[in-house]
């Protein structure tokens, strides 16, 4: 039975400086979680790209909307959730930025970078909220193998269970 994760929950305004703030917070959480410098860079960059996505595409830069940034620190992994108030998207429908015809496009690399830098990435959209869930495993000898790839949303299972439990308590 796994221990309850430590949590950091932040609500950010839809402002461009929220992106820098969230990136710096992610770096500090990654330090606390025990990731090395290279992994800290990858995690903070993946969070930055997730926040850019929420700011630009999810919330369409509407200042009245919020961006949620939650971290769950488990003994062997870090789970990050970035949520916005946009209509959402499907990962499989995002164009491949490595395709020859897409290499010279000025945009469309954010999600690719997120998926390159994190071990797992899933998107859930419902009730006017889109949540991107990212998972990074600690590279330690004690680290168990990542779970087999599951359906979209599977990496978010524990975080979702926690939210449901929290909802029941309220």
């Amino acid at each position, binding site marked *: 039975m796994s221990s309850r994760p430590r949590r950091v929950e932040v609500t950010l305004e839809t402002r461009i400086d929220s992106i*820098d703030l969230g990136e710096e917070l992610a770096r500090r959480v990654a330090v606390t979680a025990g990731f090395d410098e290279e992994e800290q*860079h990858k995690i903070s*960059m993946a969070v930055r790209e997730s926040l*850019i996505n929420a700011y630009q595409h999810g919330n369409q830069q509407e200042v009245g909307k919020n961006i949620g940034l939650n971290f769950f620190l488990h003994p062997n992994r870090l789970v990050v959730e970035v949520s916005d108030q946009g209509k959402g998207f499907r990962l499989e429908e995002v164009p491949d930025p490595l395709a020859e015809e897409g290499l010279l496009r*000025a*945009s469309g*690399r*954010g999600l690719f*970078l997120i998926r*390159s830098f994190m071990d797992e990435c899933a998107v859930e959209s419902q009730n006017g909220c889109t949540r991107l869930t990212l998972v990074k495993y600690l590279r330690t000898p004690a680290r168990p193998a990542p779970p087999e790839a599951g359906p979209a949303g599977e990496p978010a299972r524990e975080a979702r269970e926690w939210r449901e439990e929290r909802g029941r308590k309220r």
Partner: protein
Amino acid sequence: MTIKVNQRDVAGVVVLDLSGRITLGEPSARLRESLRQLLNQGQKKILLNLADVNYIDSSGLGELVSGYTTVKNHGGQLKLLNLTKKVNDLLQVTKLYTVFEVHDNEARAVQSFQ
């Protein structure tokens, strides 16, 4: 967080020494404006020195690609010089290394425009 841009002329090639982070917002806009001004001045040989740029996000990458395309469409060339490891890794993972001509020696980079 912003980016500093210093402009030099080396044997007919404009070298832009960039320092800081090329990211969404003002830094990307600053780079775009610098390139636009150079093209308006008729400069067509542009070398971006990224020795002091240790961070580029997807918006910054987009700005570099956009700049490359714009300069090329004006009949010019835009090349990169002195990538840091992080920026080099980023160009590798996004395959942009196959788009840009990248140099690690300024004299040879300048000579490559002739």
